[in-house]
């Protein structure tokens, strides 16, 4: 009991809220063509990459910021942000971890990210992104042996331009929506992974994102390509320091699965959610999209969303190849003044495509949560199937839980089933648990974990444990 209490006390406050005092190189404040040229220049990018950015920026200037989402936020001044920030010591990229700034290593140690090789037993290859740039990637050699490319995307642009050129922007084109286009123009770094034909990636690939500097937006770009018959499981984690102002995070993630390939993408998102009164926190406006390009391909998204002041994202699957499969498992927890508008899109284009959506939303305190999803079966997608289930749990009458599914069926040979429920934790369940000696909080934790189990099971082992704890912590103080 005592241990548990201690653990809770330790975790009650956002434990990743520290800042690292490290020297930064920044681009001039503001958003204009010069800043984009600056970013491209400092990264030594080839001309085609600069053109890609400028094209996106041209388009961005014509776009209006969307405002249909449920959580409203004060207007963001895009000219008052830094679009590039990098630890100074990164100017000449270190060859190995020993050359890294010890402060950086310490930061990641605090975060529990196994950058050091001695932690190799964990068997996870990590790409760590600090503010705008990737600082370290582990286990590279081992992966290279199998032909797997796993490196920061800025390196991939230099070393594997043919792959990047072919796939970058193929799922999220530069002409996409407001935030995605902004990202295409100013993205600074991110991860790139390529799994060659027939290779089953021997370990989990992982990226760890950290926002440190203030007044910066983080715009990273992730591109994962799984060639024919390959398999990869990818993890993503995020934290940020506690600050009073809101910070923007607008990432793009593109997945491409060719014939018979499978990509499993898991996120545990724990950005700083703001304080109890809703001050500060990250705006998490992310575009994630996967393309099942080949036959029999599969993309599966799993997300545990506990952080951020506002979460606004819809990891989607475009099921283009025949027999392809898309899955979406989500737990979203909002507490205090957090807001979330999240869900998925399943676009069925190929024949015999299948998709499954399991979404669990829990809202407590003064928070507001929306599931918004689209299932679109096109007229050519014969024999397709979708199953959607979204359940919401409410704690208290100051919070809200909403479900807004869009269901479009244009094919008579396809079936869509959707169900949604909203309820609270039943008195009987609570009573039953308490009768057997659990405290009210423990009982709620147990019931909530049971509620989320279907999704938690989808996470890789290492993450599942962390996520389970996170679920408990996020709801601390919401009972009673």
């Amino acid at each position, binding site marked *: 009991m005592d241990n548990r209490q201690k653990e809770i006390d330790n975790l009650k406050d956002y434990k990743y809220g520290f800042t690292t005092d490290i020297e930064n190189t920044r681009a001039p404040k503001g958003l204009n063509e010069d800043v984009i040229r600056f970013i491209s220049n400092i990264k030594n990018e080839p001309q085609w990459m600069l053109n890609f950015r400028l094209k996106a920026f041209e388009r961005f200037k014509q776009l209006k910021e969307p405002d*249909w989402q449920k959580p409203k936020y004060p207007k963001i001044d895009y000219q008052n942000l830094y679009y590039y920030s990098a630890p100074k010591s990164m100017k000449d990229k270190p060859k190995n971890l020993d050359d890294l700034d010890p402060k950086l290593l310490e930061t990641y140690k605090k975060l529990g990210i196994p950058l050091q090789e001695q932690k190799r037993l964990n068997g996870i290859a990590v790409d760590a992104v600090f503010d705008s740039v990737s600082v370290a990637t582990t286990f590279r050699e081992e992966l290279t042996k199998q032909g797997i490319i796993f490196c920061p995307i800025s390196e991939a642009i230099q070393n594997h331009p043919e792959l990047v050129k072919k796939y970058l922007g193929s799922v999220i084109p530069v002409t996409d929506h407001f935030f995605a286009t902004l990202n295409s123009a100013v993205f600074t770094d991110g991860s790139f992974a390529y799994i060659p034909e027939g290779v089953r990636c021997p370990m989990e690939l992982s990226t760890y994102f950290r926002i440190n500097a203030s007044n910066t937006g983080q715009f990273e770009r992730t591109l994962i390509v799984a060639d024919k018959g390959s398999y990869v499981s990818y993890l993503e984690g995020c934290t940020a320091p506690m600050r009073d102002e809101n910070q923007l995070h607008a990432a793009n993630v593109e997945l491409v699965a060719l014939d018979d390939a499978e990509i499993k993408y898991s996120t545990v998102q724990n950005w700083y959610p703001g304080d109890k009164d809703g001050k500060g926190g990250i705006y998490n406006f992310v575009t994630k999209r996967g393309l099942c390009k080949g036959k029999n391909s599969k993309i599966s998204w799993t997300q545990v969303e506990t952080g951020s002041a506002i979460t606004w994202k819809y990891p989607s699957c475009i099921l283009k190849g025949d027999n392809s499969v898309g899955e979406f498992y989500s737990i979203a927890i909002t507490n205090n003044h957090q807001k979330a508008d999240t869900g998925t899109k399943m676009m069925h284009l190929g024949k015999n495509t299948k998709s499954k959506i399991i979404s669990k939303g829990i809202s407590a305190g003064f928070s507001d949560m929306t599931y918004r999803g689209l299932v679109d079966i096109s*007229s050519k997608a014969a024999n397709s199937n979708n199953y959607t289930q979204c359940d*919401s749990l*409410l*704690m*208290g*009458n*100051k*919070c*809200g*839980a*909403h*479900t*807004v*599914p*869009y*269901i*479009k*069926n*244009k*094919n*008579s*040979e*396809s*079936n*869509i*089933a*959707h*169900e*949604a*429920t*909203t*309820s*609270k934790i039943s008195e009987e369940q609570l009573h039953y648990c308490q009768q057997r000696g659990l405290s009210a909080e423990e009982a709620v934790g147990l019931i909530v974990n049971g509620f989320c189990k279907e999704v938690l099971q989808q996470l890789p082992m290492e993450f599942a444990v962390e996520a389970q704890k996170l679920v408990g912590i996020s709801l601390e103080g919401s009972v009673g």
Partner: protein
Amino acid sequence: MKEQLQKDFDNTIKNLNLSQKDIEIKKFYLENFINKGFPNRRKEDWKFSDLNQIIKKNIGELSFYSDYTSTNKVDTSAFVDGLEHNKIVFINGRIEKIDFDYEKKDQIEIIDQSETINKFNNNSSLSDLNSAFTNKSFKIVVKEGYQLTKPLIIYHTTNSKIWSKNINLRLNFELYENSSLRLIDLFKDTSEKNFLNIFYNFDLKENSVLKNYKVDKLENNNIKYSFNNIDQDKNSISETFILSSGSNFCKNEINCNLNGEYSSAFVNGIFSINNNKHHEIRTIINHLTENTKSYQLIKSVLEDSSRAVYQGKIFVNSKAQKTDGYQLSKAILLNKDSEFNAKPELEIYADDVKCSHGSASGSLNEDSIFYLMSRGLNYQQSRELLINGFLLDVVEKITDPEVKNLIKNMIGIKE
């Protein structure tokens, strides 16, 4: 369109004896409509049915002026046989007959409200259009404790005299304590290519019961929009049944405010459409206080390249604990070109509630057909039997036996 509107508006005003103040109000609504125009797909509520496009494609230029100075002959053969009923007859948008022969005269009051433009709880452009152009508007009041002995049938008849016209109707109903009303809307159109814009407002006081059955069965080429606003007090019950089938395009909207405790709302609907028809039902049930209940069931059978849309929203206020809300939509797509779109929405701010929705769409179950065929039915018979059973489910929800039989006969569903 703007000049046309202005011209038709001036002509309409000329024929009405309105005070200067009312003219000003009407002008205000006209101005609003001119600014907003017909709703298009950029409006979230019209995402799946772009009315602007539909009118452009099917009608082209609309005329907003109707000459209501001469009367139309009421064709009594069109009345429903075998069911004694009260009637209101609209012909081409003009009220020709109001008849409550079966009821006690002092228990029902019909108030002509044409001269006072009452505010409508809706700020859509179609409401503005309606406010600007309605010529006659009546309020029907059912007095305290009175229950109508016979149902009221409203005949919406149009004939070939009108073409490319916009017709705006408005009725107001007030049901006092412990009263009840059964209301059937029957659409009979022999006209083509007109746009009907109908607004009803219902005010249900404590313990009153409203049953509204909307039947649009006969094939026609008109475009219809109908909006029901229902305000409910304590213990009141509203039941709405929609048969959406005949018109080229039809959108029914139900906005129901459950203001009083223990009030309940039921919405049941059938889409049975073919050819190029495009129909929609949109419901908004607002649970605003404790212990309210709503139930919705929508079933669709879609043939050829028809398209049905269901947008249902359950809203639960933070005060509305113990709400029970349920919503189910099911669709059978019979042809590869047919399409079903749904947006079942929940917006909930209270925790002690039971809210759920389900939506399913797909083809006719081949296993069931196989089962029936193995018992000697041919394919066509099996198919009909299954579709009949599927739709019968909704018809059976009608709580009034007389009306249930009437509607069963009308759609030809056999038990």
